[in-house]
Structures are given as structure tokens and as C-alpha cells.
């Protein structure tokens, strides 16, 4: 790896690591409703909003009430977006000349569920399908709301682990508004201006027709890209303004803009580990989890980088000597910037890659796939990353406990039979939501007809990737898959919902049970869950369970492709 490339990755991880404590500490204070410097501006609005909705902020919710609020809120968001998209032509800024792809009921429904679950799987191209009104009012807003909702669920989960003999997990409405007003909105305001400074447009003019230097016609498409872009990544959603997403020069014009994007994706989820440690009163617990995340992140980075640098096997056989695989990559990012973005976004449940994954080498393209299959736990999505990692930890503690003959416990909370059943619910959801639809798709003409650019093992990988991405609420894609069909719009919706609610509901139920428990005192026999050995247990569990579940599928796709080439 070249020195600049190494520096790029190293400085990125260093920046994230340096921001974990301040950001994590701030989030802890925000959700504990302790004083912060923004209170002066925001408390009045917060109070007014809850008064308007007749919500008493002190009113705690049980896990069932919290989950219901979360689910109903998500469904309301879905219906709202669906309505806006279907009725797009009645709203302002609808230029019929540019918008040539129609929002059919299945596409609108798919997009609505997609954005309300932070998946932001886009079976459409922004340039030809959406008006600026839809991009902002329907989609950018959902990026905030869905991201904030996911963060709230994670906070409720952490409260479950850190409270004792409590029936309440907080108040969903309070958490939601706090996440939006204190965290996402201020950071988005700052971030979007940084992006404009780097060249991301913010205008309400949609198209500009011109004549190029050689006299050919070109139509430039612009829009309110900057305010959309920052929350796309900050809320770990990932759906881009344009079809080419993070590779489009108007979304990430410079390497520095790309760095802002990557930090926006990684910092808040990474910092939640510190928030957890703080709420628990034992920061080491948080740092150990952060260490696991970094280890997984670096492993993926190393493998992907190696594979892409080695270049395309087919091209080498054709006698073409090319330095690294640059197909589907942008010059300003190069190979290293593209790989870093791919690893950050696939781990971050954010689909905003800046290069074409479909054109990656077999093993290079397998890395984002594996990152998602392992549960997106290396920083992860906003809220879902830490929760996912903790569930893996519980699984590991359970296995370890079985081997030694002790009741597994974490942070003084007993992981008993019911708790394990809830963990298993989530663990079983992933093969169900990923492998079953993939199998269905490759056996039916409806599924196979979407393969437009690749067939065989690479086509199989495209399909597997699609359902993995939707279940993982990621949204990135091997774009050769023509996914705007009734089959895929419907099937991916199911995967997305299982991924979102299949994690949130068991997690909240677990939190409810934990909160009701007392805290077991630490004895000489307690397995220290802030130790290096614990980190190894978590890592090992993630890799082994992931491998056992998905290795066969990977053999049919990327591994076969690599061995054949």
C-alpha cells in the first residue's frame, strides 16, 4: 500500500477515534437530558413541541410502548412518503421534461419503506424520477426521522442494560426529538455548509442546457444536493441524490468532501460505544467494543484493498496490464479512496458508495457483502451497529457460558433462557430474510430477468447482495441488477422490514427484561466483559456464526467467481 493510501486510512481512523469521546459524551448528556451548550436554543422548541403533542416528557414507556411507538412512527413515515411520491406531480418543482420514470405504486411503496427503515435502497435514479420537492420533503426528512428513530431505539436498549429494577426505558418521543434537534440537525447544518464549500450544489434550479466546448448538447442536473447529502450519511441512510450516489461529482466533488462524508457515517455510531460506557459508569466496556469494531474494519479494508490492487483476473488473462482495478472508480478518489468508502459504507449500513461495486474484483466485492452479513457491527448504522454488536456479544457469552457451565451475564445482567430466545430471533432473521428470497429469485424468471449486465456467479452475487443489503438496511447495490420490478420491489420490502423490526423489537424486549433485573455483583467468577479475551470472544462469534450461516452462499457467488477466473 502506498504511503498516501496508508495515511488516508490511518488519519481517518485516528479522527474517528479522537472524536469518539467528545461525541459519545455529548450524546450521553443529551439523552440523559443533562445540560448542554445548545439547551438555550433548543429547550423552548422541545417543550413547545411536546406540549403541542400532549406528551409529558417525564412519562416513561415500557418496552412494549416504546416498540409500538417506534413501529407506528415508522409506518406513518412510510405512508407519508408514499403519498408524497405518488402525488409528486401535484407538488411544486415538478419538471415533467426531466422526470421520465414514473413512480408506480410498487416503486413508491418500495421507496417509502426503504427510506423509513434507513435502508434507502433506490430502485430508481434520482435524475429521472424525483422532483426537488420529493427529494427534500419526502426523502431528506425521512433520513432525519428514521435515523433519529434508530438512534432512539439504541438508547432505549442501552438504558435497559444500565438501569436496575426499572419498568421504563425512556420516552420515544423525547428521544426522537432530542436526536433530531440536538444531534442530527446541528451537525447537518454544519456539514452541509462544509460540503457547499467543497463544491456540492445547493440550488433550486434543476436543469441547465448548454453546449459543450466541442459544441455538443449537454444538460446539467443540479438541485438542493448539499442539505440532502449530509443527512444521507449522518443518519446512516445512504440513498443518493443522483444515480451514481457518492461517486457523482456533485455529491462528493473532492477527496476532502469524501472525507467529510465518511466521518459523517462513522463517528456517531462509533461514539455510541463511549455513550454506553458512560451510561454504565464503566468506560472500559465501551472501549472494548470499539476495539472490536476497529479490528473488523481494518480486516475488511486490508482484504478489499489487496483484491482491488491485484486487479481484474479476466483483464490480466486478456493480456491487459492495468495498475489496479479502476473500472467503476472515480479518478479523484482513486483505488484507495474508493476502497475506504466501500468498507466504511458497507460497515456503516449506509449505501452511499463512491465506486461501482458491481465492477469490483470477486473478493473485493465480497468484502462489503461479508461486512453486511456479519451484521454491520464495525461502527455500524446509527444505533443499530452497537445493538447488533451487543447481540453478538450475548451470543458469544452464551456459548462461552455453556462451555464453562456458568450462567452468562453482561454488565451484571443475567442472560437467561428468555433473553437467549430473543437473541436467537434476530440471529435467525438474517438467513431467513437473505437466503430465502435469493433462492427464490435465482429459481424464477421474475428474479433472473433483473440480471442485465452480468450472469452466472457474478449475477448470483448481485442478487445475494441485493437481499443482504436490504435486510441489513444498508441500501448499496451491485447496480447491474435492474431492481425496479414488482418482484424485487416486493421482495426487498419484506427483507427491509424484517431487518429493521426484526432487530428493534427483540432488542427492546431484551432491554425491557434487563431493565427489570437488578444488577448482579461482580465476583471472582464473573467473566470480565471489559477484557481482551472478551473482545476475542465477540470477534470469534461474529465470524464463526456469520461463516456458518453464509459460507455456502458465498461459495456459489464470489468465491466460485474468484476460483474460476
Amino acid at each position, binding site marked *: 500500500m502506498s504511503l498516501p493510501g496508508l495515511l488516508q486510512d490511518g488519519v481517518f481512523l485516528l479522527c474517528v477515534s479522537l472524536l469518539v469521546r467528545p461525541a459519545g459524551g455529548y450524546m450521553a448528556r443529551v439523552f440523559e437530558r443533562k445540560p448542554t451548550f445548545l439547551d438555550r436554543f433548543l429547550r423552548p422548541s422541545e417543550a413547545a413541541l411536546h406540549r403541542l403533542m400532549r406528551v409529558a416528557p417525564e412519562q416513561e414507556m415500557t418496552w412494549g410502548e416504546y416498540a409500538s411507538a417506534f413501529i407506528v412512527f415508522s409506518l406513518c413515515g412510510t405512508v407519508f412518503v408514499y403519498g408524497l411520491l405518488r402525488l409528486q406531480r401535484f407538488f411544486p418543482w415538478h419538471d415533467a421534461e*426531466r422526470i421520465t420514470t414514473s413512480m408506480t405504486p410498487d416503486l413508491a411503496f418500495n421507496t417509502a419503506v426503504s427510506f423509513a427503515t434507513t435502508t434507502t435502497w433506490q430502485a430508481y435514479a434520482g435524475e429521472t424520477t424525483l422532483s426537488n420537492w420529493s427529494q427534500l420533503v419526502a426523502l431528506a426528512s425521512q433520513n432525519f426521522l428514521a435515523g433519529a428513530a434508530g438512534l432512539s431505539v439504541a438508547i432505549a436498549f442501552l438504558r435497559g442494560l444500565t438501569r436496575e429494577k426499572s419498568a421504563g426505558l425512556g420516552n420515544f418521543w423525547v428521544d426522537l426529538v432530542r436526536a433530531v434537534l440536538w444531534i442530527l440537525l446541528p451537525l447537518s447544518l454544519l456539514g452541509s455548509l462544509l460540503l457547499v464549500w467543497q463544491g456540492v450544489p445547493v440550488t433550486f434550479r434543476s436543469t441547465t442546457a448548454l453546449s459543450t466546448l466541442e459544441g455538443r448538447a449537454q444538460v446539467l*442536473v443540479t438541485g*438542493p444536493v448539499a442539505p440532502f447529502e449530509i443527512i444521507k450519511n449522518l443518519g446512516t441512510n445512504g440513498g443518493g441524490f443522483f444515480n*451514481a450516489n457518492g461517486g457523482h461529482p456533485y455529491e462528493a466533488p473532492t477527496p476532502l468532501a469524501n472525507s467529510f462524508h465518511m466521518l459523517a457515517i462513522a463517528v456517531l455510531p462509533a461514539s455510541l460505544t463511549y455513550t454506553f460506557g458512560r451510561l454504565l459508569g464503566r468506560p472500559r466496556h465501551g472501549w472494548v467494543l470499539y476495539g472490536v469494531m476497529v479490528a473488523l474494519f481494518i480486516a475488511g479494508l486490508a482484504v478489499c484493498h489487496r483484491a482491488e490492487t491485484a486487479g481484474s483476473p479476466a483483464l490480466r488473462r486478456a493480456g491487459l496490464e492495468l495498475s489496479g482495478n479502476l473500472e467503476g472508480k472515480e479518478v479523484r478518489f482513486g483505488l484507495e479512496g474508493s476502497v475506504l468508502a466501500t468498507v466504511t459504507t458497507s460497515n456503516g449500513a449506509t449505501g452511499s458508495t463512491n465506486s461501482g461495486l458491481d465492477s469490483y474484483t470477486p473478493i473485493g466485492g465480497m468484502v462489503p457483502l461479508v461486512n453486511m452479513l456479519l451484521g454491520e457491527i464495525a461502527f455500524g448504522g446509527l444505533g443499530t451497529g452497537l445493538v447488533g454488536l451487543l447481540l453478538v456479544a450475548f451470543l458469544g457469552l452464551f456459548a462461552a457460558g455453556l462451555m464453562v457451565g456458568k450462567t452468562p451475564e453482561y454488565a451484571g445482567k443475567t442472560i437467561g433462557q428468555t433473553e437467549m430466545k430473543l437473541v436467537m430471533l434476530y440471529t435467525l432473521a438474517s438467513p431467513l430474510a437473505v437466503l430465502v428470497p435469493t433462492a427464490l429469485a435465482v429459481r424464477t424468471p421474475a428474479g433472473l430477468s433483473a440480471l442485465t*449486465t452480468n450472469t452466472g456467479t457474478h449475477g448470483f452475487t448481485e442478487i445475494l447482495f441485493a437481499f443482504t443489503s436490504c435486510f441489513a438496511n444498508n441500501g448499496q447495490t451491485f*447496480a447491474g441488477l435492474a431492481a425496479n420490478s414488482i418482484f424485487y420491489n416486493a421482495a426487498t420490502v419484506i427483507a427491509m422490514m424484517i431487518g429493521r423490526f426484526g432487530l428493534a423489537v427483540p432488542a427492546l424486549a431484551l432491554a425491557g427484561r434487563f431493565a427489570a433485573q437488578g444488577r448482579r455483583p461482580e465476583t471472582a467468577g464473573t467473566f470480565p466483559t471489559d477484557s481482551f479475551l472478551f473482545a476475542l470472544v465477540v470477534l470469534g462469534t461474529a465470524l464463526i456464526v456469520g461463516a456458518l450461516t453464509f459460507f455456502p452462499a458465498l461459495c456459489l457467488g464470489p468465491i466460485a467467481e474468484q476460483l474460476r477466473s
Partner: protein
Amino acid sequence: MKLILRSSLYVIVLTVLLGGVYPAVVYGLGQLFWKDKANGSFVTSEGRVVGSELIGQGFKNPKYLHSRPSAAGKDGYDPTSSGGTNKGPTDADLAKSIAAAVEEARKDRPGDSRPVPADLVTSSISGVDPHLSPDAAFWQAARIAGARGVTEEQVLAVIRRHVEPRTFGFLGEPRVNVLLTNLDLDRSLGRP
């Protein structure tokens, strides 16, 4: 029922803030402080807009730097249809088109046995990549010099003026903006 009502109200009220007030504030501040960038970084020449600094365009005239291959739209570099080839690494069609591009590129430097710069023969994911790597630009200098009737060194001097280095020395890659370089070629070495 009460829950549904409450949820809907929160969605609507927060959307007014997040889909209305917030973008308006960003728009106002963006247009105030960075007007050209906020509007798309348009480039003008001889009184008319010829493109954007950030959006690539195709060039066919041998006197200009040619951009990377593009899969955006029928003829490439169509911003209304941004995208890449999305062809996998073991795809036979992709290998063929890259081989053809390599053959074309070799015509610019007959006798040069070094590998052709990779970005010159591959497509970007956006299809509107405005840049070339410095190597890819230098590779074309001989052809441009021949077509314009000037020395290769003169062309290289113009290109070198437009090599943007890595940010802070390590972020991203060094790159050459094709449109800006071509405009400079016209300014310094005469319009074709």
C-alpha cells in the same frame, strides 16, 4: 388510534422543519457565501457557459485531451443518466471494450511499451468524471502536440499547470481537470 394520530403529527411537524426550514437555511447561506459553487461550478468561455468544472464532457477532436470512457447515456457524459457499466471483472464484453480502448490509446504513443494508464481505458461509476490521472493526460500530449503543430513540451507545460495534487498531501489522488486544461490549451496554443 391516539398513537397513530400522535405519530402522524410528529412526522408532519418535524418534516416542516427538516424538509422546509433546514434546506432553506442551507440554501440561503450557501448562495450567500459560495454562490458559484452552490449553483454548480459552471465554467464560461467567450461569454457562454461551456460546462461545469465538476461534470465531465466528451471530447473527440485530436487537438483536445480526451476524457475517460463513459457509460452515462447513449454517447457518454450525459448527466441526466449518470451511471457506470456495472460490468463485473470476469465479464467478456468488458474485457473486449477495455482491450479496444487500450488499442486506441496505443495509437497516441506508438512504440511506447509501458502499460496504458488504467483510468484512460476504464469507465467511472458516475459517467461524468471530470478528471484524468496525470499519467493519462501526459499520455495524450504527443497526439495533441502533433494535431496542433506545437512541441510536446509546450503541451506538457499546459497540462502540468492543471495537475491538482492530493489534498494535504495524502487525501485522494493527483488529478487533471479535462475541461479546464482544454480551455487552457486553446488560450495558450490557439483555438483549433
